[in-house]
């Protein structure tokens, strides 16, 4: 597979802070490559280095064969970028924003308007083409920002947390659009901390923790790692899934990981079901909790992420909180 992005030892310091630590990866032609990690892991910093908004402190990277340090202006002609923040111009209409982007990228005058209208139709925004950007809903703004990245028909698309802040319907619609771009053969570099999003959209995923890549693999292979250990979900009434109770239970099960899932349930990673229940049942009884359900769970990408990234339950809980 032809490589469209190649990073070797890419490093970024902000003063003394090491934001990205010598990461290496490749993205192939037509591939959707996910960068998955908690907030502050270095995902956006990586995308900024690959799109010319930040200079690497060390290492090398090429996009479509162009060096990000020396030839970025040339590379920019062939890439589209959807930043985390929808940053089009409030005062310009949806149509004028796309036409302006076409002007900046040198789309020929006779094709600018046609291309802009084509994208507005594709993204369901044609009826609002004359509305100022400021008056669009958050989902529409996000969709228009994606459309703006496609005006000049880029070969590689960078998407930084594309669905953050969107409601369920808008996020699903945007994921559908990304999937359709993938089917058209576009190479996509996607950063997200939504595990389901990465699972559904990506051909391969790099898990990034504290600036370092922990692993790179397909979603299926990542989940297979988690499948090697049993996972049980246990629900108690009332509110047996509170984090303090989960932490208490964790102390009763040395060597296993206990993660609070919601107010009623915990997940227990590892250990045989019989031995786990031998400990859990008296523990629940002592605390006046009623065992409501015990299920064996097929590991999700989230389970794989917890196992591979070695993140504590509290970090994951924080991420889940941000998702809501």
């Amino acid at each position, binding site marked *: 597979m032809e490589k469209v992005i190649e990073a070797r030892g890419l490093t970024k310091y902000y003063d003394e802070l090491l934001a990205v630590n010598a990461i290496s990866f490749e993205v192939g032609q037509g591939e959707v490559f996910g960068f998955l990690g908690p907030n502050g892991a270095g995902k956006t910093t990586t995308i900024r280095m690959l799109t010319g*908004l930040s200079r690497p402190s060390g290492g090398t990277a090429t996009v479509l064969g162009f060096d990000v340090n020396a030839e970025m*202006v040339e590379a920019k002609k062939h890439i589209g970028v959807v*930043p985390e923040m929808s940053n089009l*111009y409030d005062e310009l209409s949806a149509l004028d924003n796309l036409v*302006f982007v076409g002007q*900046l*990228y040198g789309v020929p005058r006779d094709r600018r308007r046609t291309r802009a209208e084509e994208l507005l139709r594709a993204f369901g925004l044609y009826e609002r083409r004359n509305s100022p950007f400021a008056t669009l809903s958050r989902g529409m703004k996000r969709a228009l920002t994606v459309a*703006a990245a496609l005006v000049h028909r880029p070969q590689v698309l960078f998407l930084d947390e594309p669905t953050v802040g969107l409601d369920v319907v808008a996020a699903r619609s945007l994921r559908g659009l990304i999937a359709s771009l993938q089917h058209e053969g576009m190479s996509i570099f996607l950063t997200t901390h939504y595990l389901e999003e990465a699972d559904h959209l990506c051909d391969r995923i790099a898990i990034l923790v504290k600036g370092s890549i922990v692993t790179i693999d397909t979603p299926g292979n990542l989940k297979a790692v988690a499948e090697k250990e049993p996972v049980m979900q246990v629900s108690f009434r009332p509110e047996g899934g509170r984090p303090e109770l989960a932490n208490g239970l964790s102390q009763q099960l040395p060597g296993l990981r206990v993660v609070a899932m919601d107010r009623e349930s915990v997940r227990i990673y590892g250990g045989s079901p019989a031995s786990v229940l031998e400990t859990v049942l008296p523990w629940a009884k002592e605390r006046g909790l009623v065992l409501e359900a015990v299920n064996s769970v097929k590991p999700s990408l989230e389970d794989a992420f917890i196992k591979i990234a070695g993140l504590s339950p509290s970090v994951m809980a924080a991420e889940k909180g941000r998702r809501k």
Partner: protein
Amino acid sequence: MWADNVRGIYYIVLKDMRTYYLKPPAISWGIVFPLAWILAFYLRNPQDFAQLVPGLIAMTVLFSTTAAEAVVINFELRLGSLERLLLAPLSLSAVLLGKVLGGALFGLLMASVVSVGAILALGLFQVNLLYLLVVLILSLLVFSSLGALLCVLVKEVFEAQTLLNLPRFLMIFLSGVVYPISAMPPVLRLVAYLLPLTYTVDGLRQASSGASPAMVAIDAVALGGFFIAFIFPATRLLARRFT
């Protein structure tokens, strides 16, 4: 690359004129402010008013360009829309130059209103249009790039405006706008020659009084030097924000 940058600069200027400058608040500020100054000076001393016209045009250039420039760049940095421009296949210098030229074009429109008004109202028909244009255009670039430089030195819009007041008022009182430099004490005269507005006021006076090309050339060279002294550090400081 060169053609890409020129095209980008052109469209950035057009976009900025449309989204920021050709709006009622900007136009009314750009016209009302110099008109208020003109009226104030005219009422104070109608006989010598013609002597003050170059200074008033110079002040219009100073205020219209710096006020706009100091707002626009920080505003777009804050909203993230400046990054939109930096993601396009343009150099960072081209993006900054587009911003500076947008402010300069707005200043040119405002200065033209005052200049045409002064020529028609006071009958200053002997003005050398070529000299006037050279001094005006260089001055617009100088003050627009000064606005850009002070803007990228700070992070907030209001900080840039506050910071701008110091050079602005220093220049109003020491650059020969209202008080002749020749009548100043030697120390203040030295300070006056370190201020760009001094060369704008002098150049505009030369243009309206039939002076020799050499005198205008000195003002033009000084203004060109100030432009370089402002635009290069502004570019470096902006680049530092993205490294």
